[in-house]
């Protein structure tokens, strides 16, 4: 399973440690809320709403260096727009990986 990394955040910060911490705090605060929104929307089988949240979440995949995860999210978003959710479990696995990772940084 692809693992997240802080490469983009470090490049963004330009070695500004205070910014890195502040930025990670924002990710740690925002991600669980978005994940929960995603789960609720997905359980309601609201494909359009779920696609919108996936669209937002895929930016986090990018920020955390998850290239394969990002491609999966793009495909999943398109699938949802077509009214299908076969990639749901794969997507959830990426979310759980991120959730675990941000507890360690």
């Amino acid at each position, binding site marked *: 399973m692809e693992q997240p990394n802080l490469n*983009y955040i470090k*490049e*963004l*910060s*330009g070695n500004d440690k205070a*910014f890195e911490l*502040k*930025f990670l705090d*924002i*990710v740690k*605060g*925002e991600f669980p809320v978005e994940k929960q929104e995603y789960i609720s929307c997905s359980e309601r089988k609201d494909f359009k709403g779920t696609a*919108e949240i996936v*669209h*937002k979440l*895929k*930016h*986090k995949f*990018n*920020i955390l260096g998850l290239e394969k995860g990002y491609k999966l999210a793009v495909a999943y978003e398109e699938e949802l727009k077509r009214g299908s959710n076969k990639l749901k479990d794969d997507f959830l696995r990426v979310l759980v990986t991120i959730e675990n990772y941000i507890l360690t940084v």
Partner: protein
Amino acid sequence: MMNCIIVDDEATARAIVAKFCEDTSEIVIKEEFSNAIDAIKFLNKQTIDVVFLDVHMPGFTGFDFVETLKTPPKIVLITSDKDLALQAYEYDAIVDYLIKPLTKERFEKSIVKVKTAIENQKIINNASKVARAANLGELFINIDRRLIKLKFNDILLIQALGDYIKIKTEKEEYKVHNTLKKVKEKLPEDVFLQIHRSYIINFTKIIDIEDNSVLIDKSVVPISRSNKPKLMKHLNLLS
């Protein structure tokens, strides 16, 4: 220094744009918004140079946002969607289109684009202002107890001749008992420029400038050394 607002429902995305803005000395952040409606209310009260705008926001897209504003500032769209670029460039206000995740290099290029767009807008606004002033205004002069109306746009130049001034239009010349100083006060300064102790010219009528003289219609008008920088500053010069 330009000012901006950031509009994105995602806090991490706002933090990235804010970081890049802080890293450049060219732009200052006035406010950040997590929803479009609050940003529109703010823009209705304040003048802002540029908006960094997310396309996908709940209930209100970036395009809805641009269409809602009567006189939108310059807009830089930010999105994860590569397919919206063509649609974006249909809007005059949208000067650039950035794909998430943003990079510093690309953001800096965007700032250059915004600066150029703002400068070009100023030139266009100024040119329209000058054209408006030249077309709309008029001056009444007293000749033999008769008040004659001269449209600003018809006046080519005014020359001081002792206690008189000579006003040259495209068709006539008028000699009026007055001073250059007094007539200057009656003329719009965007259109008329004193380029010599004895001459005021209609800036929009310049045909060419050579060394220390200006050609207007068939008249060659001297430019004094002290007035030359002022004249050059007025020119929309392609350097």
